[in-house]
């Protein structure tokens, strides 16, 4: 059992100790004859980093540090984005820690799921500590790397283009269906069943609502281009809580439309309303420039937004 980390010095020491244990499995790989390096395996691993965790809510936080307010053309408020206080964010970090140990397992379980199924996963210990919010829903994201393979009936709430600004090539589309068919009191019944079976976690499978998409991610560009972009779209209600630091976003009004722009993250946020839904659109530059000072101009992000918004 390791000692608890109580200071930055402890942290630095533990980091050093850990680094001394790390060795690559594959070792150094060189093909001598042709004097070229062989890339053995580039596994498409889905690393989920939750530095930008959104939690939808209709309850307005009383002590939020920062918020972004989006207004429509008619001056009506569309969306309030709140940065969580440390206190509010803590349960989410606690939850992350509980679920961290199941990462590999969840990945394997997702791979076995049918396209129209989702998995409900409950860790007994997490439920006892966090209650209902310990219940995890997961599904196998639908992924397309060839633009021509995107199903004809896929109809996103924006213009789907093979090239952005006429030059930046489509790389990947990922989307996930809605979990609308959630079961009432599921966490509690799963918990009881897990206790009865005396297991540390329990799963159940359910039908996704495949008529509704909850999350879309588009990748454009990459190393062969000057820029790379990830565009994400998700339906939102009138309030979002986030663990992200919102203080570096500034409001930009472009041709009557309101955007929020973060120069440090090279990210543009926009709320798009259709007749039935509203969506949060995030356009992010993903390629780090050789010269870190060489940021993508805001105008380019706005031009992309213009291309996407119908």
């Amino acid at each position, binding site marked *: 059992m390791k000692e608890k980390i109580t200071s930055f010095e402890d942290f630095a020491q533990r*980091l050093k100790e850990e*680094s001394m244990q*790390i060795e690559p*499995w594959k070792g150094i790989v060189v093909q001598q004859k042709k004097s070229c*390096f062989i890339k*053995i395996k580039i596994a498409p691993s889905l690393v989920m980093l939750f530095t930008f965790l959104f939690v939808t809510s209709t309850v307005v936080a009383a002590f939020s540090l920062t918020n972004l307010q989006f207004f429509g053309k008619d001056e009506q408020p569309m969306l309030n984005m709140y940065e969580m206080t440390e206190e509010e964010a803590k349960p989410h970090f606690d939850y*992350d820690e509980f679920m*961290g140990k199941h990462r590999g397992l969840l990945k394997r379980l997702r791979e076995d799921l049918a396209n129209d199924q989702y998995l409900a996963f409950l860790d007994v210990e997490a439920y006892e500590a966090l209650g209902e919010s310990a219940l995890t829903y997961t599904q196998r994201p639908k992924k397309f790397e060839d633009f021509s393979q995107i199903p004809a009936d896929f109809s996103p709430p924006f213009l789907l283009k093979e090239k952005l600004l006429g030059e930046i090539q489509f790389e990947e589309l990922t989307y996930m269906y809605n979990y609308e068919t959630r079961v009432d009191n599921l966490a509690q019944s799963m918990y009881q069943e897990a206790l009865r079976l005396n297991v540390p976690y329990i799963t159940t499978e359910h039908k996704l609502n495949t008529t509704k998409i909850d999350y879309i991610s588009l990748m454009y560009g990459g190393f062969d281009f000057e820029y*790379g972009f*990830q565009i994400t779209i998700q339906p939102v209600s009138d309030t979002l809580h986030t663990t992200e630091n919102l203080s570096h976003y500034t409001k930009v009004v472009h041709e009557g439309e309101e955007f929020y722009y973060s120069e440090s993250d090279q990210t543009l946020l926009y709320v798009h309303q259709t007749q039935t839904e509203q969506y949060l659109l995030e356009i992010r530059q993903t390629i780090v420039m050789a010269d870190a000072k060489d940021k993508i101009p805001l105008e380019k992000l706005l031009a992309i937004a213009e291309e996407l918004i119908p």
Partner: protein
Amino acid sequence: MYSKMMMYRGEAQEVDVREQLLEQYYMEIFRYCYGILRNRQDAEDATQEVFLKALESPQLAEIDHKSAWLYKIAYRHCINRAKRNKLLQFIPFIESAKEDTTSIEEDFELQTILQQLKVEERALIVLRIVEDKSFDEIAIILSITAATARKRYERLKGKVQKIIKRGAFE
């Protein structure tokens, strides 16, 4: 396409330069990538991609400071890799590296602190603490000034201390 210098040196010497580069820096770069990505498989893949890129570079033989150059490539590569895989999720859990760290003694406390730092911040922490780089060297790798590197590191120390104090991993 190789530079004139490479063509003049010929194939045999070109092999030497490449092998030397691999032998000398592979472990360092792997450790660096692991520190940023916090996942062994991703670090393996990233390191191989970094060296693939470096060894295919026409400027390879002409680079004087190969170490800084490799760190620079690795930095860009890992940040891009992490950012490109970043997904806005409705399923709020962090995929920690348990499955991928079978031979590394698990340190959930350390992992939890590092997961709360941005990838760029982890890169700086690893350069300073694990690789023991000076702020001048860090400045070259991260394309910033030494003063900025120092300032960012001090700020990061404060952030880590705050995370420890908050005890999110308790």
